[in-house]
């Protein structure tokens, strides 16, 4: 079983200093996850050292247009995650080292996860109903 690992909340201005601190301490960037909530975006970042992870969470309000300072200068691994967040959630990353300009994830709908987050209750139509009886 994975050990219980803490989830710490961060404010926006602590985002870059925390990353610099972890870079100095020799941590590795494990992942960045975005979650769209009703009035804000939640970004979760994990650093790891010696198989122990620390997670940090930051909340970005939806308007003005969401923006998060880029960590790609500190952790080179961050650029794929930031490009993904940019393409899925429409976040802006000032200072992104490798910017694919929204062409990294070629989804049919651009910025698919930025809209309403209310989960549509899909009516699951059984297959057998529509087919004619044999």
């Amino acid at each position: 079983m994975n050990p219980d690992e803490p989830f710490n909340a961060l404010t926006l201005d602590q985002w870059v200093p925390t990353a610099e601190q972890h870079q100095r301490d020799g941590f590795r960037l494990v992942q960045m996850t975005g979650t769209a909530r009703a009035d804000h975006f939640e970004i979760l970042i994990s650093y790891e050292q010696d198989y122990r992870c620390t997670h940090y969470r930051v909340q970005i309000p939806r308007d003005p247009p969401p923006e998060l300072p880029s960590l790609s200068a500190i952790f080179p691994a961050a650029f794929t995650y930031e490009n993904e967040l940019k393409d899925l959630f429409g976040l802006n990353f000032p200072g992104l080292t490798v910017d694919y300009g929204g062409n990294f994830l070629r989804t049919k709908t651009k910025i698919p996860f930025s809209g309403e987050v209310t989960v549509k209750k899909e009516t699951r139509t059984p297959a057998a109903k529509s087919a004619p009886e044999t």
Partner: protein
Amino acid sequence: MSWSWSVWPISNLVMRSALHKPVTRLYPTERRTPYARTRGHIEFRIDNCNFCTICAHKCPTLAIQVNKQDKTWAIDHSRCILCSICVEDCREGCISLSPVPSPPMRAKEVLTFRQEYEAPPPRETVAVALP
């Protein structure tokens, strides 16, 4: 650079398989016996079914549809993921998992079973006088 034939590590293997009979089967004529656990397809026997609709409720992909009034039980094999939850949950033991894979489907079809099927009355024969 010249390599003698025996230096290549794969040469033994290639030689052996060239002299050996093929490891593959000649499929349509020679078929494998399936393992006892192989998830082939769902089989249904309507005899004991009391149309409790548990299987239809438990089915994660809604492949099974049961109608209590009409006494019909239908399965869409193209939706079925062979999780065999219906097999475990059927109280009457009507549903079973066959290890033989279902034959390829030519068209999308739903297999429907109906209890107390009444065959249409036989057509009245009209006596025709032979000429």
